[in-house]
């Protein structure tokens, strides 16, 4: 099939960017979306135009490196990552608009590549359990109810892709943050630092320039791992508790 691509091109962070239009023939529906862009890049390279920069690594939906705004939807029309989106979700003659994640906390590096370092710093602020190597007790010394372990696991599947931020009209990272708060807060090991964790992470989140949540729900609809909105409720709850405890 044949598609028309409108792609954001921006040489580097400091330069102005603009949308460019490319036609691409011979797209097969078995191609992944990124393989389609690979083909485009081969063509561009042959024609002497610099290939479009975009991020990807694992290409199997787990590393969280990829992420494009495709026709106004983060990761495109299916509930999955950009790398797992396939061209069979499109049809011959489609126009496809491709933009980078837009958030001032995720500045554009080049073309479709953005800097998500803010997520790392939110984790640095408190997204961990403080246990030095070697000081851990025997694993079976603390049983964890299966339900709690399951919930912790379900939200720990967040891949840190940033689609929630990209989709959120407020540019909020609450879903990402809530997923970590819930993961660690659901486990007995995460209790001692629970108050401090939420206070520091939220402060870092705000400091990075993410917006405040208005519980709109675009994040969870874009999330390739289907992290539910409950985690934001949990985040809010934990913050209130921390305040009550004098933080």
């Amino acid at each position, binding site marked *: 099939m044949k598609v028309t691509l409108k792609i954001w091109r921006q*040489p*580097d962070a400091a330069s102005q960017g603009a949308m460019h239009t490319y036609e691409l023939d011979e797209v*097969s529906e*078995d191609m992944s979306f*990124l*393989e389609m862009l690979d083909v485009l890049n*081969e063509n561009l*390279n042959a024609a002497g*135009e*610099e*290939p479009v920069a975009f991020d*990807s*690594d*694992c*290409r*199997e*939906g*787990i*590393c*969280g490196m990829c992420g494009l705004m495709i026709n106004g939807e983060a990761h495109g029309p299916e509930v999955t990552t950009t790398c797992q989106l*396939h061209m*069979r979700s499109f049809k011959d003659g489609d126009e496809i608009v491709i933009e980078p994640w837009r958030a001032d906390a995720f500045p554009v*590096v*080049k073309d479709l*590549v953005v*800097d*998500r*370092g803010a997520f*790392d710093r939110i*984790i*640095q*602020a408190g*997204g*961990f*359990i*403080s*246990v*030095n*190597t*070697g*000081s*851990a007790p*025997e*694993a*079976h010394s*603390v*049983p*964890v*109810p*299966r339900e709690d*372990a*399951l919930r*912790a*696991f379900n939200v*720990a*599947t967040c*891949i840190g892709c940033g689609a929630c931020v990209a989709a959120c009209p407020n540019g909020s990272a609450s879903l990402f943050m809530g997923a970590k708060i819930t993961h660690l807060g659901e*486990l007995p*090991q*995460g209790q001692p630092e629970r108050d401090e964790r939420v206070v520091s992470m939220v402060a870092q989140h705000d400091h990075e320039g993410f917006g405040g949540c208005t519980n709109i729900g675009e994040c969870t609809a874009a999330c390739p791992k289907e992290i539910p909105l409950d985690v934001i409720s949990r985040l809010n709850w934990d913050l209130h508790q921390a305040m009550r405890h004098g933080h």
Partner: protein
Amino acid sequence: MTDMPDTTLTSDPSHDAPGDHGDDAAGYYTPGEPIADTKAPGGPIEERWQTRKFEARLVNPSNRRKLSVIIVGTGLAGGSAAATLGEAGYNVKSFCYQDSPRRAHSIAAQGGINAAKNYKEDGDSVHRLFYDTVKGGDYRSRESNVYRLAEVSTNIIDQCVAQGVPFAREYGGLLDNRSFGGVQVSRTFYARGQTGQQLLIGAYQALERQVAAGTVTTYTRHEMLEVILVDGKARGIIARDMVTGEIETHLADVVVLASGGYGNVFYLSTNAMGCNVTATWRAHRKGAYMANPCYTQIHPTCIPVSGAHQSKLTLMSESLRNDGRIWVPKKKADCEKDPRDIPEEDRDYYLERIYPSFGNLVPRDIASRAAKNVCDEGRGVGPAVEGVRRGVYLDFSAAIERLGKDGIEEKYDNLFDMYARITGENPYETPMRIYPAVHYVMGGLWVDYDLMSSIPGLFVTGEANFSDHGANRLGASALMQGLADGYFVLPHTIRDYLADGPFEPVPADHPAVVEAEQSVRSRIDHFLNTKGTRSVDSYHRELGNIMWEYCGMERSEDGLKKAIDLIRTLKDDFWRNVKVLGTAEGLNQSLEKAGRVADFFELGELMCIDALNRRESCGGHFRAESQTEDGEALRHDETFAYVAAWEFAGDGEPPVLHKEDLVYTAIEMKQRSYK
């Protein structure tokens, strides 16, 4: 079943008697002095690690801040080491090429992690895990290292649970285990199909905690391109800031490479797009020996290639083989038919036929080779890519009948969904198609018991080293190795080296620094100024095809020699005719790839030479010339029970082969049999 074609062999068998062969690789290499691991203490195997930990010198806590450690890689091996050394108070710099440490390819591991906890009371023990791992590696690994791995495996689980890794649990709240990769005990800990992700997030969080504590600095989107040696010791690296293009010098007292595997030399593999050999290859060129580079693991259950555009392959957990039955049509003519229309009697369940006792659960290498053989015969299924159908059916219809659709869904729904997403086919209704793919490399930089390479001060951990898996890796043991190395081994062994530090500071204009930086710059300039006609990817793809064809599942003397010629020709062409657009000052993904592919060429050649030298079939390494009457792998312990450690001798010069003899004191070598 009597009129079945013999599907086990495709090439002419020449049944070698052990030892009666010439040196296939003669002329391709120079024999060198034997080497040995001098760090493992003697004595009973159970006591060696305790002894070494005791004998390794300590570093005064107040001195640690003054000692700097560079760690390249933030996967399980690198991330865990950076966190642990940071906690100990060393001054750590951590590098990765992704935009966040959390994205290292360890994240993609699905199945699980082994540990000798014996929670199931099913007869597991440190010794049994050690035994299984050595046997699984077909007696080509170093026993003292493997024993230590089994020994610390239990600490890993404790550590990860304390960090909040949400392993699967039973109703009582205790950890669940499953049996994995054909072993008879249940010792694999898992977190649904995302074990690697959960373990890596644990290590990543520990790492970020140290960043906040100020002991670790992370350098993301930084690619290491050269190692700096001063007075024979590793003292730093040259890295390129992939965003600004700046060439940076980072100096330290010690350098650790935890840069993962090089399976991408095959172009198509289950590795991430950016996985590379550059970090280890640059070290190899500076004197680190590369051990057993040809040992590659090919995983039988991957989603087949769908066309020429394919950029990577996706693994589906091996656990699928527990319930799926593998078959191809008996008749070539049936290969295009809808599989559901092929009657039972026209199907060849070839694994069940050839290996009646293990059936579909034979080890990875056997299952992979058998699939290749039936496809080479023309009985493969699925779309023909470049004229050949490369796929076999993995059929769940019997299991669905037995367990119900719900039963299957409960066990495998995420895998089935992934399959459906990628192929557009519904595996509940029509059989899955699978084909083997490169998945893991057992080869890597040679290290001693302390995990130090042949370059003093250069340590290597995780998949980047060669040490623990011999010629074949058991399922769920790479995660174990990565974390064992990073959390529990390296932090002890590195202190013995650092006890002599801090070493004399290296000035920024030291000739060794200047030389390393110059060589990086001139390579980059070369790529940008060649202005040829072919893209980097097209070279990579062609190299991958050569490697897969001749140095993949089955290798032969003729094929390997041919491959070496092809690689050399292609490499020459690459250096003269590659086309890389853009500039060096800023993000340039073609430029990054060009550097990686340049190193893959050199590695690919060495892999072929190594494979040529090893005229035996062992583990994942199958030499057509070395098989039994009925086509099974034939090992030659008298001749090949050694680690092949290759030394770089200069561009265009044959590499030097150093052999490390493998001596087993705690275990007896046996031939594998799965019939």
